[in-house]
């Protein structure tokens, strides 16, 4: 468990979300992200997915509810969830390209990103997006520049219904529980997310993984193979030296090879 000075987080109440998407606009505005061209796909949901210039997005999950009107929406605010056990930070090969802010968010430095796309391919929530224009990844950084100055992230500031609540992580959890929340998505997942949800239905109905985990192959790669390399190579070199010391070189003497 990583310890932070003051863990800041979001508690998102999807039931309060009206999908006005003020958060999407505020995010674009603060981060000065360009508009992206999309097409009408027969849904109010837009853009279709998070991309290098859309750090956050309201996902419209549509379900029939049996009435004549026939539809029920489950809105999900998609963004980086700022895991404590962050897969992206585990796999990143470049020092400082992905880093932890003092408040607990996972921010990125595009100048240090080498575009290997490891994080894009392994994030359990498929959050980091790679831009072919900049050759780097980008994602939500929880407005760490605003947080460092005591302001709330842009999306939370813009939310008119109070669906995005920003504050100290412990207090947010206590508050949600006091209001009767049974399951807080993100309280314990991946050692605790810094963006949590009070869901009204099961996570998969919202399009969230039910049991998010660091992929098995990443665990194998970084927790088993990496130490194997760290110890295996020096020990092999040592074994070779030991062999040379014990047995010495194998000299072929003149004439010896001639015996047949």
């Amino acid at each position, binding site marked *: 468990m990583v310890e932070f000075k003051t863990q800041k987080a979001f508690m998102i109440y999807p039931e309060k979300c009206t999908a006005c998407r003020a958060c999407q606009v505020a995010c674009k505005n603060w981060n000065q992200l360009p508009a992206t061209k999309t097409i009408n796909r027969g849904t109010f949901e837009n853009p279709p997915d998070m991309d290098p210039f859309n750090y956050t997005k309201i996902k419209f999950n549509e379900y029939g509810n049996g009435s004549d009107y026939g539809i029920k929406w489950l809105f999900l605010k998609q963004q980086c969830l700022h895991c404590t056990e962050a897969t992206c930070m585990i796999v990143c090969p470049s020092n400082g390209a992905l880093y932890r802010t003092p408040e607990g968010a996972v921010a990125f430095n595009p100048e*240090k990103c080498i575009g290997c796309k490891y994080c894009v391919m392994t994030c359990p929530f498929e959050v980091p997006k790679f831009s072919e224009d900049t050759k780097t990844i980008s994602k939500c950084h929880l407005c760490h520049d605003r947080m460092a100055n005591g302001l709330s992230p842009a999306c939370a500031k813009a939310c008119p219904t109070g669906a995005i609540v920003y504050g100290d992580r412990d207090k947010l959890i206590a508050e949600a529980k006091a209001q009767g929340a049974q399951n807080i998505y993100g309280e314990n997942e991946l050692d605790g997310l810094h963006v949590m949800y009070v869901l009204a239905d099961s996570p998969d109905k919202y399009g969230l993984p039910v049991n998010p985990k660091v992929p098995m192959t990443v665990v194998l790669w970084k927790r088993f*193979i990496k130490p194997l390399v760290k110890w295996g*190579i020096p020990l092999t070199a040592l074994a070779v030296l030991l062999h*040379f010391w014990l047995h010495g070189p194998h000299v072929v003497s003149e004439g010896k090879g001639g015996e047949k």
Partner: protein
Amino acid sequence: MAGKIVTNGSTALEKIGHWALVISCVICMITGFGFMFRSLDIFQKIFGLPHGAKTVHHFFGLVFFISLILVFLIWVKDCGFDSEDIKWFKVFGGYIIRTDQHFDLYKFNPGQKIFFYYTIIFGAIVSITGYIMWNPFAWSRGAVQLSYPLHALSAFMFALGFIGHGYLGSWANPGSLSVITSGRVTRAWCDHHRPRWTRKMVKEGKLKEE
């Protein structure tokens, strides 16, 4: 015949293939371990910051793959196993524990043949997974996620082989290294390490001596 020098211990193509593989392998290992261990990011910096190291890793990865194919085509015909190899295996050629036993080998001893297949297999895995990781968006997430540990593991196996092969080819067997550098070895070395090859070359009049 003692004291004579054989000058055509290996062909020009063998030398080129071998050293292209060695050089590309070393550069890929240095940059690769620089990526694996962030504390070793000096290995990234000497190749022009992480961005440059990535480009270098990709370029020499390509050189590695091409030279791997080259050495496979050159040596695969010399790496079949025969009955003499079984005798060799019983004492492991006297390589690990020294013996005076002698074997009527052709060009490579069975240990070298095993190392040949070891190199080809792990070289192929590291190349294929590296190709997948190069442009991950062309593949499924599962395939790419599986490539990461396989790439690391085969690179590790390659590094171990590199240490063992480099040791046995140089300090452990003085006189052997020059067979792949200048191609010049003593006649005694030829008679000892590749007697069947030497006899064949003599018979065909292809053994160049000075």
